[in-house]
């Protein structure tokens, strides 16, 4: 069964901490994405990557960075966590050049910043 795996389901961090969210896919997908999901706002794209070491800003990149050193792994980094980054974070992947076949999502990481 193909999978996108997010390293943590729940995470609690303190304000100012550097936070790493990890995502691994086993489908050899070129594209990987990080979204955050908030009530009433839906899914908002933070960053995406279409190849190793490549990254593109999404709609809300401020306060975040990403790293893609290997094809299967895409990390989201909160440089200095703030309470307004409390959210559900969703990782997804797809083949290059396709929204064509849909995205495969991980189970999500619910991050609380206190």
């Amino acid at each position: 069964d193909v999978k996108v795996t997010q390293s943590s389901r729940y995470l609690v961090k303190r304000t100012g901490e550097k936070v790493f969210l990890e995502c691994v896919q086993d489908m050899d997908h070129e594209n990987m994405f990080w979204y955050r999901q908030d009530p009433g706002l839906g899914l908002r794209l933070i960053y995406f990557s279409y190849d190793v070491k490549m990254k593109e800003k999404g709609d809300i990149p401020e306060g975040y960075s990403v790293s893609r050193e290997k094809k299967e792994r895409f990390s989201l980094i909160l440089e200095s966590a703030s309470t307004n980054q409390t959210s559900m974070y969703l990782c997804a992947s797809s083949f290059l050049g396709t929204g064509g076949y849909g995205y495969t999502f991980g189970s999500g990481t619910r991050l609380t910043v206190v």
Partner: protein
Amino acid sequence: SQQGEEDPQALSIQEGENATMNCSYKTSINNLQWYRQNSGRGLVHLILIRSNEREKHSGRLRVTLDTSKKSSSLLITASRAADTASYFCATYRSGGYQKVTFGIGTKLQVIP
């Protein structure tokens, strides 16, 4: 920016009834996709309809697409309690980011 807008935002029906959710969008698209999200989990891809298709079926799901009205509908027939979830439409437009844009979702509750 959000492309798709689902309607209604919340829907409550009895088990066995049909559930219809609608999605409107603003610009031309290559395809439209529907996803389901169970509470606190990730999204699961349900069905994709291309811009040159008008209707598509998958099991108890029926999706229609009207590109002239920039709208789509998702029909779930003979609903079950396990269908309780949020449903999102997502539009795909090639070029530029080649990314999918999600709506805010419809929360469906199926009462046993």
